[in-house]
């Protein structure tokens, strides 16, 4: 009700500037958008916005990884994917222009790890490919193609041959892709 936007205190702003990759303008914009999502409640900075509301943002609405994004960046105890303002800043910081390859690949790994077990096994890869290609019949891969694809991926990226891709192997693959940094970006 009312919708009076609370201002971000200066010391918090400077702290966020030091600790994230975002610039001052980006943080203020994020704060504005987050306040709108909160629906004008003047809650403290630890109040959470539910996942459904976060997913109404235009930058995330059509993204096939949106649910994973919420889960990865959420610090909620209930594991419901709700984000508070700092989680939101974390998300934007990891996807910002100036974030390093290491940060981005770290978070990309966690986003692609659908079962949260710390490695990308065949099931994770299958879910990933399905997310990428979509669910319609003409774009989905056949079972045979999927099997071939996953075995090729594991052959190329699993260096220690344990059947899964761990963080280091993932980062090694990513380091060879020059397009990763520019495609792993979200701009508000």
């Amino acid at each position, binding site marked *: 009700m009312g919708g009076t936007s609370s201002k971000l205190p200066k010391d918090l702003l400077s702290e966020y500037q030091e600790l994230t990759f975002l610039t001052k303008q980006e943080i203020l914009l994020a704060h504005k958008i987050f306040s709108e999502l909160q629906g004008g409640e003047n809650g403290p900075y630890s109040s959470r916005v539910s996942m459904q509301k976060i997913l109404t943002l235009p930058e995330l609405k059509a993204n096939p990884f949106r649910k994973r994004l919420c889960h990865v960046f959420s610090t909620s105890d209930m594991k419901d994917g709700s984000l508070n303002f700092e989680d939101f800043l974390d998300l934007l910081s990891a996807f910002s222009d100036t974030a390093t390859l290491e940060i981005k690949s770290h978070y990309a790994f966690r986003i692609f790890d659908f079962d949260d077990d710390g490695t990308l096994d065949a099931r994770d890869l299958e879910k990933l490919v399905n997310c990428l290609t979509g669910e319609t019949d003409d774009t989905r891969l056949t079972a045979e193609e999927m099997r071939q694809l996953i075995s090729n991926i594991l052959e190329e990226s699993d260096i220690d041959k344990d059947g899964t891709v761990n963080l280091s192997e993932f980062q090694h693959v990513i380091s060879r892709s*020059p397009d990763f940094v520019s495609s792993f970006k979200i701009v508000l």
Partner: protein
Amino acid sequence: GVHDSFSQLIQEQCHDLHDVIEMTPLDPEEESRGQILTRNRPLRQEVTSERNLTELLVFQMTSRVWRLRCTSGRSRGAIISQYCNRTMQLRRRRQSRPSIQHFPRSARPSIRGYGVETDAAGFEEEENKRERLVNNLQNLSDSDRVRMLRAMPLSLSEKKELRHGWYSWLSFLSSLQLWQTALKCVGGRFGTGVLSYFIFLRTLLFFNVFMFLVTGLLLVVPQAIAHPDLDQNITVRSTWGLEVLTGAGYFSHSLLYYGYYSNKPLQTGHSCSASSNKTSSSCGLSYNMPLIYFFTIGAAFFITCIILVYTMSKSFGQSFRIDKSKGLLAIKVFSSWDFKVIKKSSVRLQRANISTQLKELVAEVNHQKLKFPVLQRLFRLSIHMLAWIMCLGSTLACVLAVYYFSEYMHGEASLLAIPVFVSSLNLLLPGFFNVVAWMEEYDSPSVLNYISISRNLLLKVSVLGVLCYHWLGRVATDPQSLGLECWESFVGQELYRFLLMDFIFMLLDTFFGEFLWRVFSQKALKRERKPVFDIARNVLELIYGQTLAWLGVLFSPLLPAVQIIKLLFLFYMKKVSLKMNCQASGKPWRACQMTTIFITLLCFPAFLGAAVCVTYTMWTIKPSASCGPFQGLKNMFQAGKRWFQELAAANPDLHWLPSAHAYLVENPLFLFLSAGIFLIVIYFHSQVVDGQRKIIELLQEQIENEGEDKKFLITRLQHIHERKRRVTPRRVKEAIIPDALHELMEPQKRPQQQL
């Protein structure tokens, strides 16, 4: 570097060990002390706890000295301590790593680990941690942040480590917000490929702004302030509109062209009189226009060259990978999703793209040996050859047409004819090449891309070559035959006309090529999809326009300003047309690689060609005798030489200057020597890259072997567990450990020896 990733790898695999032995997760505080295992420590002392057994096992798997931290997977505390320790390590050891500028930022994976604590009790600890981090936050991009950091209560020695303010200013400048929202819109809807075109346009704009500032401040403004001392009979022309197009008439005796610039030093006061045609500096503040003109153009080109080469090498560094032979599928799956794309239809399109590419790649990787029958291969080869003959033939025909056209077309009416002719060739022929390529049916779209770019490039380079020959070879050497007094102004006008016509034809192309074609294809052909934005063609057009601007700077110092206006218009026009008429492409476009290729093309044929032409003009061609700053000199280069001689004459200490100048600049030996040194440096670097490639292969083999070692050791350990049935599944008793170690330490049947 590699060691860290190795240790991380081992840590990941420690995870597996926990399943076997069921150990409790480590205390983050303890492991933050950092434990080093060396061979020197006696083993008996270590075997007192489960944790040490794990460490020992891991140590046995490797035979190096590493900092081992067995973390339990993804625990936050472990990650934070790990990063803090890493930064501490780095600062202590001061090793130089490849991307040391970026390293400090990796010390802050998230802000959650620090929390925003108001509780005073935990504040000291927080403060220390934060202080350590802040020390690492050196390369911040916002000048505000640096100021804020300075205001923090840090000791002076630590403040000294906080880096140069100027560096943050530079990066602040480079992240200029020009067109940021517009670019975001374009990227969100059309993806990174089309976005790279607009970013390239912005880059060109900055180059032109730089050149305009340099020539404007040093040449145009002084000459505008001083009185023109050429008395001309300016005949009044009637149609003003046509003059903007032709650049002649009123403009031909203006600041726009070379002919306006004085060859005498410009004086501030008029009390002193300078003798005509002497470049002596007399009383008052004199501004030696010929010298300044010569050095300004030279310096502008030199600095542009440096900036271009730097941009190119940076772009190369991002897109060139040492071992790029394998890993295509994995790279495609992990990094092809463009998170910038927001629009639902574009997302759907992106998914369709990726699906097609993955299917093609899987088929390609697994059916590589698909051989066509010999007859079909010959047939395809002959089609390719036919296509190439057609393209080259049409290029040759155009070149000859331009050659004869330029030779025989004279007079007022035909001033615009040649530019119109060349621009229409540039417009129509790439379309023809596209049709030919469509007939050819290439296997992979990237090969098709490269081929069409190279054909287009060949056309533009040959046309420009013929035009340069016409201007510098014919017009410049024999201006009397064309009735020209001031051939430099004439060439400047020609280039102005070419630039303008290029712009007008781009407008027409946008209107006809994109707008009308879309209307036609939707209404008449009833296609659902709008036409696609041809990135390669548009970028080559930009490069062509920029080459013209660079060629013309010597003859028309205000030409960069014209180019700036043109680029500004073009940006908005293309953006509007894109939104209305085009849709995202269905073909893959490797943005990073293509951007590198375009910057390379900008540097090599375009800039290098322009620089060679300008250098040739300055070095060999005789300037016209009655206009411009170099009247009466043998060539433009003489202006610099004369100045050295005058300096030497005025100041006896500098008598070596002209002779040094003669040896360094005019003697070709120096040029050969420097070229030779460059080649040696390039060869050395390529050898280093080869060596690194070999090392990477060896290291990958090594990782594989160590993975197998680990598997072997784990199975052995399981074996031992089962044999010694005194052990409960949840705890490892201390008694059995020495035996277990004996077993492990015996170097029997290790896979390494079998391999």
